[in-house]
């Protein structure tokens, strides 16, 4: 089972006396996993550890049963890394950059040619691949970096801030590509500050701050685990004030706020199970016609706020 997973076992990394990450234990199955945390939280260190670019001070890392120290060629054949840095060898076209990257991966010239074509098509770079990278827009640079990371058909794709600097169109195209790769069974590990998009694309989130792992798992599961923060639910109904007064009468309901359009109410509850039982009762009584019920803080942004806080320190 461990051969299709990325495993971190009690991994710590110190840069001299400075903590990179501390005692991280993670199991990442295939799919899209997003690393979320404030600047300097250790996200890039975690990615560098996974890609073998830095060695852990202690602990073990296994990427689909492979380790860079044991068989670097096989390890890097299975891994694609798109860094957040804008480096390209000077004077190259996008096409040459891809071709050279594949030659560095050890592909034959014929395979490199074929895979370059495929990657360019996949990121929809088109004719721009024949132009010098120095003349590319930021979005095109992101695309060619992404093409470089996926061109050699890795099984694990590590993407450091891949959506930064992209316009909405390019961002949507990139997200569609990530989703497609994730569906095909690829490991995608993405770091991102754009929490709305984390919600859209992630199968799992890993929250990290100050080098410590705060939470990991499916966003909804993580939210449910945060029991000390009452959950907010939006209920769309015809008599929000009446519903609010009924719900507010019980102890576990700690806040009620009518929606700005007057056609719903935000309720905050400390006991979700009891809350839904009571809501069912009210609906059965027929006093309030309930149209929709949806968690209002069951997303990456809320989890980030609850677990890490706006100042970046874990609460």
């Amino acid at each position: 089972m461990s051969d299709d997973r990325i495993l971190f076992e009690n991994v710590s990394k110190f840069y001299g006396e400075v903590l990179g990450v501390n005692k991280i234990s993670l199991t990442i199955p295939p799919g899209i996993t997003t690393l979320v945390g404030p600047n300097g939280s250790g996200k890039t260190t975690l990615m560098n550890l996974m890609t073998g670019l830095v060695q852990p001070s202690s602990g073990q890392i296994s990427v689909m049963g492979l380790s860079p120290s044991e068989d670097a060629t096989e390890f890097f054949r299975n891994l694609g890394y798109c860094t957040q840095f804008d480096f390209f060898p000077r004077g190259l076209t996008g096409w040459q950059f891809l071709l050279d990257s594949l030659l560095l991966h050890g592909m034959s010239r014929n395979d490199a040619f074929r895979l370059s074509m495929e990657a360019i098509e996949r990121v929809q770079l088109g004719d721009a691949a024949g132009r010098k990278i120095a003349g590319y827009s930021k979005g095109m640079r992101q695309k060619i970096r992404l093409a470089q990371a996926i061109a050699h058909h890795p099984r694990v794709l590590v993407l450091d801030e891949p959506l930064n600097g992209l316009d909405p169109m390019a961002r949507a195209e990139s997200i569609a590509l990530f989703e497609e790769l994730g569906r095909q069974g690829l490991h995608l590990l993405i770091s991102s500050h754009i929490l709305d998009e984390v919600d859209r694309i992630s199968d799992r989130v890993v929250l990290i701050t100050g080098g410590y792992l705060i939470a990991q798992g499916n966003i909804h599961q993580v939210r449910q685990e945060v029991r000390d923060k009452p959950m907010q639910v939006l209920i769309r109904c015809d008599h929000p004030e009446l519903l609010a007064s009924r719900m507010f009468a019980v102890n576990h309901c700690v806040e009620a706020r009518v929606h700005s359009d007057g056609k719903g109410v935000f309720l905050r509850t400390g006991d979700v199970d009891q809350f839904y039982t009571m809501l069912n009762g009210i609906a059965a009584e027929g006093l309030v016609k309930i149209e929709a019920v949806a968690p209002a803080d069951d997303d990456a942004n809320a989890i980030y706020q609850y677990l890490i806080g706006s100042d970046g320190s874990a609460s």
Partner: protein
Amino acid sequence: MSIYKQNYRAYTGKVTPIWTRVLVLARYGYAEAWSSKITVGIFVFSLLPCILSLFGIYLANNPLARALIGGQGPRGLAIDARFFLNILQIQSWLALVLASWIAPRLITYDLADNAMPILLSHPISRFGYVLGKFIALFTALSLVTWIPTLLLFFYEGYASPQPWASVNLSIAGGLLAGSLIWIAFLSILGLALSSWVKWRIVATGIIFGAVFVPAGVGGIVSAVLRTKWGFLLNIPFMMSTLWERLLGVPGLVHPNRDLPTVAIAAMLLLACIICLAMLNARIRAREVVRG
């Protein structure tokens, strides 16, 4: 529940040997080095002494030309070990100029652009990266040292009416060994110093400084302590001594300055080890230091 087609296939083809991957980096380095017009200018200037020497060899072996320049005979333009020693020394110091210009272009750009994470996330080790850059620099320096000097040697062998080349084969060996030692040392020194300096022009100055400043310190040490061992810090002196011995030219140095060849070799080796340690410390994928 969605049903997904797990149709993604990892690449399973053959991979090329590691040395072919190193050559990609060497090609990058070579292209970077020669993309500068100043590099081309220094290279052309570095070939001028060889062209003059070629002309000299022609004159020395042409009876008509010898007669025209006053019949000084072979002694006026003796093509011997000292002649080639002079060429080797000139070319070697021009190689220093070329190395100090090229070496920073090979490494400082990569470090400044954060290239390491991308390059080293390929199956290329840090050693492979440095080797690729070393090959690029070494090849460039070869173009102004052992290649032209050996071509001059072979031209003299061709132009000389006597069987000159076979008799003086040790000169060719000396030219080759002397050049290779010097450009290998220069390449390692240039790369190591460039890896520690962010600004390319400063790195160029520091490479010059690393060759000549210790020479001054060594001179002071020798004068104050009345010892010859201070000259082990004097790279120009050590190399001149080594070249003289490799080409079999009698030394003109004072007996008190006569350094053993083993000591010179050990000193150069020590300098290379220090340079490799510097490269090892600096050429890394990334060192993130959080405040």
